[in-house]
């Protein structure tokens, strides 16, 4: 999935550059959040990639603005949960059909990972549910 282009036309101030990048990446995440609700493989994958891009931007800009640090940590936790679900999705596609017990365990773990991600997304600051950064 290609990243959305960050429109920096005419933007010269460093503070504005940072804000443009973060807002673009946050918009991407929000646009793909339906994948988390659908819980399907591709939707979760796309949402995870968008979260990763936002997380990297937040971590990079923490040096310039320390207030991004908490959001960066939150998105790391969210991305970790989605990554664990993704790994199980990949393994499930190649697992021999005769491994029923392992398959059930992986499916159960996958659902737990998605639940964890959904909780982190629903309560991003552990409070009101706003994704403002």
């Amino acid at each position: 999935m290609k990243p959305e282009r960050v429109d920096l036309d005419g933007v010269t101030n460093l503070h504005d550059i940072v804000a443009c990048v973060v807002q673009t990446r946050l918009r991407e995440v929000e646009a793909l959040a339906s994948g988390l609700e659908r819980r399907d493989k591709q939707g979760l994958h796309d949402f995870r990639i968008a979260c990763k891009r936002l997380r990297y931007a937040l971590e990079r800009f923490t040096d310039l603005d320390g207030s991004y640090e908490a959001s960066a940590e939150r998105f790391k936790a969210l991305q970790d949960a989605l990554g664990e679900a993704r790994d199980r999705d990949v393994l499930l596609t190649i697992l021999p059909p005769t491994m029923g017990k392992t398959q059930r365990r992986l499916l159960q773990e996958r659902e737990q990972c998605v639940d964890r991600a959904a909780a982190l997304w629903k309560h991003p600051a552990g409070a009101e549910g706003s994704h403002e950064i």
Partner: protein
Amino acid sequence: MENKWLEKTIRHERRALERARRRFVADPSEAHLHDVRTNGRRFRSLLEDVAELDPHPRLLRRVRRAAAATDAARDATIIRQLLEGSMDPTELDIARPLVDELREREKLATRLARKRLRQMSFLGIS
């Protein structure tokens, strides 16, 4: 001031990726593979974020190619470790051929990644 910060950050991340690449080529361990991938993802994300201000099209293509070159090795390692850690004890015999296949895939993919990255410096390219 703004350009200085950007130039400095790009220079810093480029060097970090180059160091990680050299470490992986010298010793293609799982930890070094992880390092080269992490540094590559961060650098790629930076180049994509500021492409309009400070474009490095050739460098960005190279960073993307490096990521692609290491995908298969990483996937095989992660999936094998997950399988080994989560398989039901009663299904060990059924899983063994798949574990062996993943181990072999991991070895071949790591060798191929090393070969590709050996020829792929991130310095001196714009």
